[in-house]
């Protein structure tokens, strides 16, 4: 199922056969994101066009959403969220290019991103609210219900990295698989429509990942009194 033009990379004897293509694709995605930003930042103009306007548009939209979610500390975390968005965006679209493989179609890349987001959320929550404050936040507004609320909240917390990982991984893998299967069964028009659907799904999933990251950070950063259970 995984035909690609990427060569097997045998560096330092570390990478096993199956994973080296994905790691090479990850490097390509990183290279594209960093290279694009470097080129854009080299000559920034006041009336942007092309790639710079796209980058600025994404940044504006994420900042606007983040302003509502994360409050005044938005500007600190937007670079992180935007990096995640651009990386996932480029990775997803690489799956649609005929010779390349999407790094996010392997379980490891979304898992790594989700773990980074989850650990950042925990560190931020404990840094902003303290361990006791965090547990009180988990307990909810009614102290008497705490023994019931805390296990439920912990379960839903632990479900977050799983849901982030699986959402991204399954959308990328299943979409690709679907187009492959349909290609052998249906006329080309159906395949073209599925290609459009896959193209839309790519940026939707990138946006969803970034949006959920902002929601989790907002939950950990905003003042506890402002939160409603």
């Amino acid at each position, binding site marked *: 199922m995984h035909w690609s033009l990427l060569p097997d990379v045998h560096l330092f004897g570390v990478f096993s056969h199956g994973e080296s293509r994905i790691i090479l694709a990850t490097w390509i995605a990183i290279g594209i994101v960093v290279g694009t930003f470097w080129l854009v930042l080299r000559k920034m103009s006041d009336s942007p066009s092309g790639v710079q306007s796209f980058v600025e548009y994404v940044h504006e939209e994420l900042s606007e959403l983040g302003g509502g979610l994360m409050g005044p500390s938005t500007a600190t975390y937007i670079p992180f969220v935007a990096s995640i968005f651009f990386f996932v965006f480029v990775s997803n679209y690489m799956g649609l290019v005929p010779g390349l493989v999407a790094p996010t179609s392997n379980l490891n890349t979304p898992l790594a991103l989700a773990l980074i987001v989850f650990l950042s959320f925990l560190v931020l929550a404990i840094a902003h609210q303290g361990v006791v404050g965090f547990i009180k936040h988990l307990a909810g507004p009614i102290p008497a219900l705490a023994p019931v609320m805390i296990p439920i909240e912990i379960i839903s917390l632990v479900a977050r990295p799983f849901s982030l990982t*699986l959402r991204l991984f*399954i*959308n990328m*893998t299943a979409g690709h698989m679907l187009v492959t299967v349909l290609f052998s069964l249906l006329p080309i028009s159906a395949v073209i429509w599925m290609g459009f659907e896959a193209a839309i799904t790519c940026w939707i999933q990138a946006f969803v990942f970034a*949006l959920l990251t902002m929601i989790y950070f907002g939950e950990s950063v905003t003042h506890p009194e402002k939160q409603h259970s």
Partner: protein
Amino acid sequence: MDNHWIMALSALGAALGIGLGAIGSGVGIGIATGKAVEGLARQPEAEGKIRGMLILGIIFMETVVLYALFISIVLVFANPFTK
């Protein structure tokens, strides 16, 4: 003989799993979108907020059916029970 049973029941389980899961997700997202459009028709100025909440709701509803799809795919492609 043993392996045949495992493969057959896994296929049945996978199909049932994703089939029933899709019912829940389809109904839920349909109802949510219907209410969102209704709310928009009542008050077109609230489009931004309605769209935001609709997208958030759809994300969570979609995730649950993705869990079911994941189990079905594991049963078909990476079955831990076949030898």
